[in-house]
């Protein structure tokens, strides 16, 4: 038995095992016909039109119910400009290019998009597992590898690959950002610069892929500061400093690209789905805050009304008398005056924070014999479990963050005194992740109230999963507070 395991571990590292398992599990889901994915919720056009892909005409509606596997490719000049600035465009363009080379110049198969994500995703799984367990190849290391597959190859994440959503790119680069820093803190590779480069490249991609990620620039600056603790010479320190500036610039750039209409939409929704919610009649609060309390009648209205509404939220009148008055400053002031309501909003926002499966759209293709908007049950155990049992209070999240930070601060303190960088880099990584978990719910409540919570907080469950697996792995490998690897313990030498 022991000999067998020794042979196994000689040829297949935990990282390799995780990657192979993830490849099989998600490969079946994504590429074996009938394929699985996410149907269009009406947002696909943003990523499609400006990149030369369009919906083929059909006699049925192409949104919500079923995954559409085939699209058309524009043959002539494409007059559509990008509706929103996003680095996702690179990926879609690359997928279209691959499609043209290997498949067809006129018909686009969504799987070409998935395959790009798939390749990068498998790399991320490999790197993540390796950085988590390095330099061990114990049974517990393989347990961690299995957990990585169980958590991160969950269909609720990988289904995104067969879609035009921007989330899969975000998911994958988040894994890379996290894993690269962890790999540096554990000296996985002899040379550090490829990992440092990977960290900055993937983080800049993350900051530019969705506009709501702009504030994360601050988080990753904190993480990047950890790199300063590496045994450095001047030139490298300077390069890292340059990288940090690039991160901040990327965040600011993305933020500046948020157009005014997008701003109005969010501001309006944060009023109708935030300020007016989780309270009785907000009449008095509104007039106290200097906004006509008549606007309380707008409770739960959408900026783009689906069917019928009393007034057009985009009209000049509403713009002048409501939206122009209720900026971020006003919102913060309002919530400071009504802290109870704000806490209730935060509780609502964290209620479903671990629910990563998209419930609004179907996972199957039309000819697969499944009902419209049906969801797959394939490999979703973790997301279902976490989505159901994760405590639904913002207070819990704060506690989690508090405890978690203390645990890792201790090792940081110990390593700092012993002049080792491992614990310090890891702590700053963890600390950065904690700021995401604490602040993203606050930001999303401020930005859009209770509307589109899952979309705004997509990064939070990923972060929670990452910190969760890090904790498990550190416990199992007995290095929560002792980052030093004894000479005899290193299995990779």
């Amino acid at each position: 038995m022991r000999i067998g395991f020794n042979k196994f571990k000689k040829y297949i590292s935990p990282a390799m095992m995780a990657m192979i398992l993830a490849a099989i599990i998600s490969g079946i889901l994504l590429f074996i016909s009938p394929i699985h994915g996410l149907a269009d919720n009406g947002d696909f056009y943003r990523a499609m039109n400006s990149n030369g892909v369009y919906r083929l005409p059909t006699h049925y509606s192409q949104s919500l119910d079923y995954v559409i596997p085939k699209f058309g490719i524009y043959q002539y000049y494409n007059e559509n400009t990008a509706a929103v600035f996003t680095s996702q465009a690179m990926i879609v363009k690359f997928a279209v290019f691959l499609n043209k080379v290997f498949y067809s110049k006129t018909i686009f198969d969504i799987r070409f998009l998935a395959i790009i994500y798939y390749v990068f995703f498998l790399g991320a799984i490999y790197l993540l597992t390796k950085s988590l367990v390095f330099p061990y190849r114990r049974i517990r290391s393989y347990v961690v590898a299995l957990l990585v597959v169980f958590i991160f190859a969950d269909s609720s994440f990988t289904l995104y690959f067969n879609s035009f959503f921007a989330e899969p790119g975000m998911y994958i680069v988040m894994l890379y950002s996290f894993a690269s820093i962890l790999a540096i803190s554990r000296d996985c590779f002899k040379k550090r610069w490829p990992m440092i480069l990977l960290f900055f490249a993937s983080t800049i991609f993350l900051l530019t892929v969705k506009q709501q990620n702009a504030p994360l620039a601050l988080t990753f600056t904190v993480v990047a500061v950890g790199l300063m603790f590496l045994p450095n010479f001047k030139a490298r320190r300077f390069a890292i400093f340059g990288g940090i500036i690039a991160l901040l610039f990327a965040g600011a750039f993305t933020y500046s690209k948020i157009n005014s209409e997008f701003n109005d939409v969010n501001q309006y929704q944060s009023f109708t789905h935030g300020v007016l919610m989780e309270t009785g009649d907000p009449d008095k609060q509104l007039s106290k805050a200097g906004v006509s309390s008549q606007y309380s009648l707008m409770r739960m209205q959408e900026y783009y009304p689906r069917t019928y509404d009393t007034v057009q939220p985009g009209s000049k009148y509403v713009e002048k008398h409501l939206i122009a008055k209720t900026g971020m400053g006003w919102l913060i002031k309002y919530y400071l005056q009504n802290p109870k309501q704000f806490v209730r909003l935060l509780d609502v926002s964290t209620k479903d924070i671990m629910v990563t499966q998209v419930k609004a759209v179907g996972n199957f293709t039309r000819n697969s014999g499944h009902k419209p908007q049906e969801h797959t049950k394939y490999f979703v155990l973790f997301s279902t479990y976490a989505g159901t049992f994760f405590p639904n209070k913002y207070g819990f999240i704060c506690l989690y963050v508090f405890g978690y930070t203390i645990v890792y601060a201790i090792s940081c303190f110990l390593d700092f005194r012993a002049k080792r960088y491992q614990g310090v880099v890891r702590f700053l990584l963890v600390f950065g992740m904690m700021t995401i978990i604490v602040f993203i719910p606050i930001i999303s409540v401020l930005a859009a109230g209770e509307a589109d919570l899952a979309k705004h907080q997509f990064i939070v469950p990923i972060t929670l999963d990452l910190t969760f697996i890090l904790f498990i792995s550190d416990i199992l490998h007995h290095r929560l507070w002792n980052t030093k690897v004894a000479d005899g313990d290193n299995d990779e030498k």
Partner: protein
Amino acid sequence: MMKNRLLTYILIIGILFSSLLSMPTNRVKAATQERVLLVYDSENDVEQSGKQIDALQRILTSLNLPVKTISQNNYKSGMLKNYSGVITMINWRQVGLTNKVFIHDREKFSGIRLHIGDNLTANEAAQLGGHARRIYQQQFILKINQDEQLLPFSETITVLDGLSNQVQKVGILATQEKNQKSYPYGIINGQNGYLPYFNSGGLSSLAASQMIAKLFGKNDTYQPMLTITNVTPYSDLKILDALSLYCYQKEIPFAISASSVSDNTQMKAFTRYTTVLNSIENRGGVIFAQMPIVGAPPISSGSELSQIVSSYMVSLARENVYPIGISSFGYWNQDEILRDNALKKANNLILLPNEKVVYVKQDNNALSTKKSFYAMSVSSLNKVKKSYDMSFSMPTALTVSLPDSKVGMHDLEQEINGLQLNWFDPVNLNTTVKTGTSLMRYRNGDYYMNGKKEDIQNTQNTNNIPIFATKQEPLFSNFFHLQGNILMGFFIIVLLILIIFTLLGRKIYKNMFKR
């Protein structure tokens, strides 16, 4: 032989006589079933012809003429048979009419024919009893009755010359030169009519409507109704109150086109709104329920719309506000879903000029109702030299938009005061609004709900029960809520123990060195 001939004579006389007898009844039938086909050449977006088409449709509706509108491309042979009148509207003279089938059918058509715009054919001119003449680069003054207006500069216009005395002329286009030349504006010769141009605002629209009314044999005149538009629950209610008080004190009867909400009607803000609306009713104003704006509803949204409108009426009535009709943009009457589920609930309408047009199921099959007011803004009459008894050929609502500032309010008061018009008093209206199970009627200034007369002075504001709004929760959420709390408690305890242990451990660790 003789007998046979006599029989034939009697038969012929009998047939003639009976046809003479039946003719008037036929006419009556024709009058009730009068339908008009409006055929336009193109929707010339450069010239905003959509606006003109909308205005023409609303005028026809106000004249109680149901109108079907089509583009010439959609005209199929024989379609005209089902109509008693046809209107040709040229919006793009460089293109004009290209559908030969339509031109042919129109030549043969025996009903009322009206041509609006350029490209009058020689045949048409002959039927009108004159010959067409093109006039270039002129600025005309339009005169009708005692009113006149200086028109904008026109590049080219086709007028008719050499008209006989039998031809009726409506309005005059006069040049500004010293030896003023003048040409008729609207021309009616029997069943044929001609308007050299059409404009949705100003005196032109009034002249056009007068001409159309005459052509279709409608000779009533109406006084305009002052109508305050853009009244929403989000409007500045103080200004609305002040404006209605101003009209009351100046003894100007008026109507308001007020939108409402279908949700959140238990809130204080709603009561504040209805209180103002109620006092408007008590000041001689009447309320037309303004229809909601249209987002992007599916065709199946008809029942939802119907519910929204019912909910408007019911929630307003609960607070002693009784809308007497419905106001909407003109295109609502051109849409099957919007018309059937909203407009048909009332028999008195105000049709406003289109703003943002979102069709649900466009059918361009406008219906006429008991009374529909053609809305035009007061400001569009600013350039008209008006007389006190300015006459309108159809029910007309002269609209002013509710201002949102005191300065705007002051300006508006000046404007209303400056309009020396003989206003229509809505007390003369006799209306019904039928939604769901409720029937609201208005007659002689009294309001009836399901047959029972309502006392609008008795404000009966229902007590507000503030409703706590929260996101809808899934099943079992309570269980998981509890489980969440338990887990949280557990976590707090573990954390406390952890902190205590850490502190203790540190103490022990330190003590190890203290010895």
